[in-house]
């Protein structure tokens, strides 16, 4: 239907817009190989005049104030553990509510789904005080547990389990399986795509969160990569653009690679989550 000329125009426009998304990342990488001095100098040199790995050596050098690898490790750890907790409790609760004879079922469903409309800011300060009271600020607990209360996953899986054909479960019950066996052997394996979707959403949410880890941690060793970089940007790296860019490059490359590899499932997930 489209003429060849208009097709070419569309492709050119798409490429130009694509540059907007890619150029900033390339500029970051280019700057990270310059000296701080050169990064400050006006000019449009894409390639560094003096190619240096000093910034990376400095960032990865294990300085007490920039334990970058520890930050990445923290982010991965809280992201993975937080996601696992969400997956376990959400699948259990969603299956119970969708299929089993849970007392006050309707009340729980209404309460959980209703909680999705409550803005996050409402629990921000009281949660902080809760963790403060129990002396759990600046620990992994404060970086992991609050995310487990989100009802999004329960809602998502509840929808899925309700649409799951009952016959399979009934056949298993007739064979003498109990609820737990039906859940782990019949229901869970079928839900793998939805669970994967929830895992990706949850992990990215925890991994990229900013304000909560910023206010609840303060020792350099407890920072996540996101907050660690922010603290450096406001602090000792405030006038070291090249060092800062090395730091952000180190943080970005694995995230982008993981994302490009996993994006198909992520996009499939957006479709499956019923966000239409």
């Amino acid at each position, binding site marked *: 239907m*489209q003429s060849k000329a208009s097709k070419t125009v569309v492709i050119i426009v*798409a490429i130009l*817009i694509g540059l*907007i998304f*890619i150029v*900033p*990342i390339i*500029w970051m990488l280019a*700057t990270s190989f310059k000296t701080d001095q050169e*990064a400050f*100098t*006006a*000019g*449009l040199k894409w390639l560094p005049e003096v190619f240096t790995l000093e910034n990376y050596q400095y960032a990865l050098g294990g300085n007490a104030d920039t334990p970058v690898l520890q930050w990445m490790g923290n982010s991965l750890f809280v992201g993975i553990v937080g996601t696992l*907790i969400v997956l376990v*409790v*959400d699948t*259990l*609760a969603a*299956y*119970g509510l969708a299929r*089993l004879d*849970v*007392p006050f079922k309707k009340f*729980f469903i209404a309460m959980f789904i209703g*909680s999705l409309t409550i*803005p996050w*800011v*409402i*629990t921000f*300060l*009281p*949660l902080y*005080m*809760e963790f403060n009271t129990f002396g759990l600020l600046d620990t992994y607990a404060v970086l992991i*547990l609050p995310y*487990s*209360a989100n*009802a999004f996953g329960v809602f998502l899986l509840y929808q899925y389990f309700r649409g799951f054909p009952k016959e399979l479960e009934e056949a298993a019950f007739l064979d003498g399986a109990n*609820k737990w066996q039906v859940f782990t052997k019949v229901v869970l394996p079928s839900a793998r795509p939805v669970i994967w979707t929830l895992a990706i959403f949850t992990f990215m949410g925890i991994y990229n969160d*900013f304000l909560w880890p910023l206010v609840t941690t303060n020792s350099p060793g407890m920072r996540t*990569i*996101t907050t660690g*970089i*922010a603290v450096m*940007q*406001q602090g000792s790296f405030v006038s070291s*653009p090249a060092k800062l*860019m090395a730091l*952000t490059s180190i*943080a*970005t490359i694995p*995230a*982008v690679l993981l994302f490009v590899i996993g*994006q198909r499932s992520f*996009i499939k997930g*957006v*479709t499956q989550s019923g*966000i*239409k």
Partner: protein
Amino acid sequence: MNTTWKSKLTSSLFVLPYLILFTVFLLIPIVYGAWMSLHNWDLLNPVHEFVGLKNYAKIFDPKSYVHNLFFEGLKNTLKFVVFSVPLLVVVGLGLALLINSLPGRLKGLFRTVYFIPYSVSVSVVAIIWLWLLDTNSGLINNYLTGLNLPAIPWLTDMPWAWVSIVIATLWWTIGFNMVIFINALNDVSEELYEAGSLDGANRWQRLIYITLPSIKPTMLFVLITSTIASFNIYGQPYLMTRGGPGTETKVLLMNIVDEAFKQRQLGNAAAMSLLMALLMIIISVAQLRISNRKE
């Protein structure tokens, strides 16, 4: 009888773990936050004096500094919402339409490229754009001066500070809205387009009369989620402009955090949080209502 009792018990065990987490990290904080907002609550003082609705009265008393903190912050947050949300919806849809009109093999490639910035965190976004937009050594001003155009004080002057924050936000998050729109566009029935073509509708008419009405629920979803996300803005101004110039980009959440942790007045801050949440709920409901009335 005994068996149903037993069965109900084992079924409850499925819901119990989540219920405990939900109670401890959501229900209790909601009640606790409301309770805090009724007290003179200093972070370092163990004694919290009950003051009733006084913290809320202060927010609405023009002579109180809390009044300025809340309403100045709210004004700035609302500015960001008004600047960013229409772009987040329209540009998201525009990119989705662009991707969909590409030949098949290129679709996936460009979708990935436009989506890449979504994978980085806000501090990386802020730092990248901080140095692209730097007045003296930033890439963008270097190109402008190269073209004999005046350098723009992107981060230190108005309205440029907002322009910068909105650009960085779009660059970062637009891919997500785009993917949601692409999914919606793929669900529009081919038959509708065929019928439209038979009636002699051109591309523009097909967009207005077929595509847009078909994806209306998605538009509403993107509108509401983008509004909520923009209301929660914190990282971009905190890292890019530090609320400046002056306090022009100091958003409500920044003022709440300052009041809670710099002034240590958690009672005031909790009252501000509650009002902010209330406002967000009202706006979401209004968006739903207005768009349903049009039907």
